[in-house]
């Protein structure tokens, strides 16, 4: 059966979730030779308000580019969690940054609540790479895209001087999931 994986990354402007969505799609399409779409939308207070990126990864051609059956929802704000948790499909994944999302409704999904931004700050030394830590978590949790592909996509997005820092952030995310297993 063909793989089709739908992601929604949601939070507020400035958390780098649009870029994370692009990296995820680029990893799948450019480096893993799959098909991928990536969309972005901002809330009414845009670029400072809410932001949302959806990524669809598929082995087959993508007939419709909007996410309708979310396999993984990443929430970086309580508001995003409250708004989107119902869209996660049964047995899908709700991944929450526990530093910002404290009230998680009960639902038929697998919950992963991790201090993503705190890990970025403490283990990498820069809270702003929380989006890259999240990508590590997502790659390790879902295996929808290979870790090597995500690394390549990250490297194509960052200047040479910060490659090491960003790869470290990615590995922090991977290791956080490994510790859960």
């Amino acid at each position, binding site marked *: 059966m063909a793989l089709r994986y739908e992601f929604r990354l949601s939070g507020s402007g400035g958390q780098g979730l649009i870029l994370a969505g692009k990296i995820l799609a680029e990893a799948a399409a450019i480096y893993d030779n799959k098909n991928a779409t990536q969309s972005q939308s901002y809330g009414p207070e*845009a670029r400072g308000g809410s932001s949302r990126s959806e990524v669809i990864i598929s082995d087959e051609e993508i007939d419709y580019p909007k996410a309708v059956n979310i396999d993984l929802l990443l929430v970086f704000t309580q508001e995003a969690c409250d708004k989107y948790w119902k869209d996660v499909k049964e047995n899908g994944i709700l991944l929450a940054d526990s530093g910002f999302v404290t009230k998680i409704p009960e639902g038929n999904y697998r919950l992963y609540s991790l201090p993503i931004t705190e890990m970025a700050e403490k283990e990498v030394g820069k809270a702003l790479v929380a989006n890259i830590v999240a990508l590590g978590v997502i790659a390790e949790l879902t295996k929808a895209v290979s870790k090597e592909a995500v690394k390549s996509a990250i490297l194509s997005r960052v200047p040479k001087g910060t490659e090491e820092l960003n790869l470290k952030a990615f590995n922090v995310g991977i290791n956080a999931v490994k510790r859960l297993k």
Partner: protein
Amino acid sequence: MYPSWLDYVNEKRHKNLVNILQELSKLQSQENLNFIIIGALPLLIRDYLHYLVYWDVDLLFRDEETLREFIKMPKTRSLRIVNYDDNLMVNKNITSFHTAWSFNQTWFNVDYILKKAIFEFYTENISKLEPYIQKIKLNSEIYYIHLYIAHPWDVITEKVLSPRTEKDLSLKIDMSVDIRHIFAVYRKEKDNIQFWNHILKRADFLQKRKKFTENFLSLLSHANELGYSDLEITPLSMEILKTEYPNDTNENE
């Protein structure tokens, strides 16, 4: 027949993008421009960006009426457009509408944009702005592109002044797309006096030259922290940017 910039577009998406550009060539009213392509694509097409990522197509419209007319314009039957937004997303300085376009089974993000006074900025010198004209052959099919796209130096001027770039710089966001674009153009043009004359005039048009030079200097002085330690900052650029200039009328906007 095959432009080199296509090397930086995922091969699976070549046909779709070229088809979209051909479609936009038909939809662009060239007598009285209804929209112009801004953002990264003009920089890619004009040979400033040399890396492979997912590019978006950003269409800047003259005004809301023109945008709404564009949405209604008849388009090639095989083109599918999916709207990501339910309505125009209206904000203080920018109004946007996000869509995805497809001629096959790959999708390209095409964003419709309105920005106060910026359409005039990009199109003021339209008589001097040469359209991008290209015949492209892909898999024995030929596509014709004839499109007005923003001048790359204008794109950079706007980006240097953009609140988003200012925010990215203040937060030292190394992944900032805008900063990457600014530095890509700077690397190539830093010793080109025509470039400096052009962008300073364009900053004058926006009545923000002082802010522009301050922002540009700030970007260059933080290049190292942003991960661009290999960026060569030349005496000419510093001399030009450090030239005193009186306050602009729009300085505090």
